[in-house]
C-alpha cells in the first residue's frame, strides 16, 4: 500500500494539512467525505487528487456518519471533515456509530470562538463539544499545528484500532481569521 513518507526536513507548522494527509494515509483511510470548510480546503484537495481514496461531497454532514458506517461494514476506513456548524446536523445519525460501536473519526474545524466576524456561528460553536459528548463521542481538541498532528494520529488509532467514535476539534485560532 502506497503511503507518503514523512519528511522531517520539510515539516513546517503551517503545512499541517499535508501532515494530516500523511497520517490518515498511514492509517489506511480509503474513504473521505466532507461538507467544505475553508480550513479543510487543502486537505480536501489532497484527498480529491488521491486515486486510492474515494471522496464524497455531502449535502449535510450526517450523511458522512452513515457513509463511514457502510465503509466499515465493507472493510474500509473513512474520515469525515466538517466545520462546527455541521456537528448539530449529525446528532441523531451519531446513534448509529454509538450503538453499533462503529469506528468514527471526524475532523471538525471550529468557527465562532476566535476572532469570529459572523455571530450566527457562535451558538453552534458553543454547543459543539457538549452535544458531541452527550451523544457519546470522545472529543479531542488541538490549538497548535504540532498538537493537531499528534492528536489526529492518536485519534486515528483510537477510532480504527479500538472501535471508538472520536471528534477532533481544530481550534479557530489555529485555522486563522477568515478574511472578509
Amino acid at each position, binding site marked *: 500500500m502506497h503511503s507518503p513518507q514523512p519528511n522531517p526536513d520539510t515539516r513546517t507548522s503551517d503545512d499541517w494539512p499535508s501532515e494530516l494527509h500523511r497520517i490518515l494515509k498511514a492509517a489506511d483511510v*480509503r*474513504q473521505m467525505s466532507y461538507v467544505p470548510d475553508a480550513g479543510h480546503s487543502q486537505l480536501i484537495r489532497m484527498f480529491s487528487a488521491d486515486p486510492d481514496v*474515494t471522496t*464524497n*461531497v*455531502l*449535502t*449535510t454532514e*450526517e*450523511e458522512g*456518519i*452513515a*457513509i*463511514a*458506517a*457502510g*465503509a*466499515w*461494514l*465493507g*472493510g*474500509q476506513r*473513512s474520515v469525515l471533515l466538517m466545520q462546527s456548524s455541521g456537528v448539530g446536523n449529525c446528532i*441523531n*445519525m451519531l*446513534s*448509529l456509530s454509538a*450503538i*453499533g*460501536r*462503529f469506528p468514527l473519526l471526524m475532523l471538525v474545524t471550529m468557527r465562532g470562538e476566535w476572532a469570529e466576524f459572523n455571530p450566527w456561528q457562535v451558538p453552534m460553536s458553543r454547543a459543539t463539544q457538549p452535544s458531541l459528548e452527550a451523544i457519546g463521542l470522545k472529543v479531542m481538541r488541538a490549538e497548535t499545528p504540532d498538537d493537531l498532528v499528534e492528536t489526529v494520529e492518536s485519534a486515528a488509532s483510537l477510532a480504527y*484500532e*479500538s*472501535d471508538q467514535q472520536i471528534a477532533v476539534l481544530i481550534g479557530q485560532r489555529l485555522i486563522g481569521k477568515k478574511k472578509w
Partner: protein
Amino acid sequence: MSMQAQLDRRAAVAVLLKNRKDTLVVSGLGSPTYDLHSVGDHDGNFYLWGAMGGAALIGLGLAQAQPGKRVLALTGDGEQLMGLGGLATIGVARPRNLDIVVIDNQHFGETGMQASHTGRGVDLTAIAAACGFAATGTVRTTGEVERLAAQIAEPAEGPRLFVIKVLAENPPRSLPSRDAVFIKNRFRAHLGFAAA
C-alpha cells in the same frame, strides 16, 4: 392521482430477494427491516432500527468499499424522504453497484399511518432521475417486481432507484436482532473481516 396500491409488502420483498445470491442488503428502520428479516435472516443483512435517512448512504459507503458486490438499500418512503439530500450525494458519487428500493406505502406506518409526502404527489423516482441516477422506475404488480428482481441482478452504469407501491398495512412484525454490534460483526465476518 396515483392508482390504489394492491401489493402486499412482504410478498413483494420475498419476490424481490428470491434469488439475491451474494447481494448485500441494508434495511431502513421500521417495516423494511421487518420485511427483510421475514424472508430469512442472512449474514449479509444489516438491519437498521434507527439512523433515519441513513440507509441509502450506508449502502453508498458499503458499495464504495465492495465494488465487486451488489449492494441493495431496502427502505421505506418515510426513511428515504428524510435522506433526500443523500440522493444528490449518491448521484454525484455514481456507484455502479448500488440500488435503492423504496417499499412505498405512502404512509409513516410505525407511528400511526399518517400520510407521507409520496401519497401527496412527491415522486422519489423523479428526484433520483434529477440527481443523475442511471435508472429509476415504479412497480405495482407481482409481475413487475419479478422483472425488477431480474433487472437489479444485472450490472448498471450507475446508481438506480426503484419504488414498489404497496398496501398501507402493518403485517405481523418479524424482528431481527437489535444488537447492532452483533449484526455489524456478523456482516463483516461474512465478508472475511475479523472483529476487533
